[in-house]
């Protein structure tokens, strides 16, 4: 559950989950997630539009069943869109984990995440509709859809496995992009309205 409040200096504060025992190790993990979340959101917000204002994002963990950071990133991105903060594009996050047999599994539960030999959290930009024809976007070099915003790995994996995970993650995020596109629309009736 993410909520965006206030217009003060840019800062991210993250509340510890309600079942926190306060052990130092748990605090370190939360701090790392907070830093990654803050940098990811900073890269998608257009910071030059409202100078001298804070955007405060508060994430409350209700239940953690694996892939906590991707879930927090998806929720924060949806909260920013709902609040009307100007964004360059959306951030879609997914967790890919690597089993011993080399299989890539997406969106694991907490037990699966603990048993896997490695996993990676990937945050990719959403797939965009464009009036530009395909050729002109590839002329520029890097296409938008080939970008990668954030990648956090845990465990040991080979380079080929990582690229494999990246490919699977990209396929999954394009489906999630479509889902986001359908659901982020304000559901107003499409009557003619006055300009404004």
């Amino acid at each position, binding site marked *: 559950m993410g909520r965006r409040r206030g*217009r003060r200096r840019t800062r991210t504060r993250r509340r510890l989950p309600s079942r926190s025992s306060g052990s130092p190790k748990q605090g370190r993990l939360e701090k790392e997630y907070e830093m990654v979340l803050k940098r990811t959101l900073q890269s998608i917000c*257009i910071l030059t*539009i*409202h100078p001298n*204002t804070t955007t405060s994002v508060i994430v409350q963990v209700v239940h953690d069943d694996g892939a906590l950071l991707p879930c927090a990133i998806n929720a924060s991105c949806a909260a920013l*869109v*709902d*609040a*009307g903060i*100007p*964004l*360059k*594009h*959306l951030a879609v996050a997914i967790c890919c984990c690597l089993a011993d047999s080399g299989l890539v599994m997406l969106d694991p539960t907490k037990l699966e995440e603990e048993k896997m030999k490695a996993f990676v959290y990937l945050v990719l*930009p*959403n797939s*965009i*509709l*464009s*009036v*530009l024809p395909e050729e002109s976007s590839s002329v520029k070099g890097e296409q*938008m859809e080939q970008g990668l915003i954030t990648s956090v790995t845990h465990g040991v994996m080979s380079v080929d496995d990582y690229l494999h995970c990246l490919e699977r993650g990209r396929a999954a995020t394009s489906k999630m992009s479509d889902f*986001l*596109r359908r659901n*982020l*629309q*304000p*559901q*107003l*009736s*499409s*009557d*003619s*309205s*006055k*300009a*404004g």
Partner: protein
Amino acid sequence: MENKPSSFVDRPVVPGDVVLDLSKMSNQTIKIGGGLRQESDFITVMKAGKLRFSKPNKYWVESSQKRYMPCVEDTVLGIVVDTKAENFLVDIKGPALAFLPVLAFEGGTRRNIPKFEQGTLLYARVAKANPGTNPELSCTDASGKAAEFGPLKDGYSFECSTGLSRMLLSSPTCPVLEEFGKKLSFEIAAGLNGRVWVNAASPSTTIVVSNAIMKSESLSGVQQRIMVRKLLDRIQ
């Protein structure tokens, strides 16, 4: 010289979508409204909403938020927070409190300054709105006449999103209000800042109209009419 509007007009868009390619449209002036931004040669979307186009050359994204950004010539409902020597401080759900000069009323002179208590609901017009400063309001229209601006007495006010208040102000009349208008008599004032005021002769009418308006945001025209007819059957 191309003069076709973008193919995404009236379609839902999300941040990141590229809606116009300026290199294809030389010799044209385009006006970009809220929710769009120019990135070298293209126009991209910043906010999720519906892309709108109005002839000859205006593009903007219509989106609905809970918070309001003050804009000149918007009619808003404000609540008086404080009174100073020169201005009333009015809360219009924006980032800063708005100033309403004590003389900004029809026939306003130093001798007949209106006395507004804290909590008075006012229907006013935004006269000045700049990004860093407090917006200024006025209770007269551009020519100096009162034109229905001023304090609103009795009734019930509630908050809603900016999209819903735009729908209530749209012409032709939005289905909820039209259906209610056939059977009940009430008056409403909708501010573009997401505040609505409803007043009727009896409290039950006020309650039923307010609740129906709050529920009608996500319904289509037909669904709104069905909901209103069901409510009217129940109370009559």
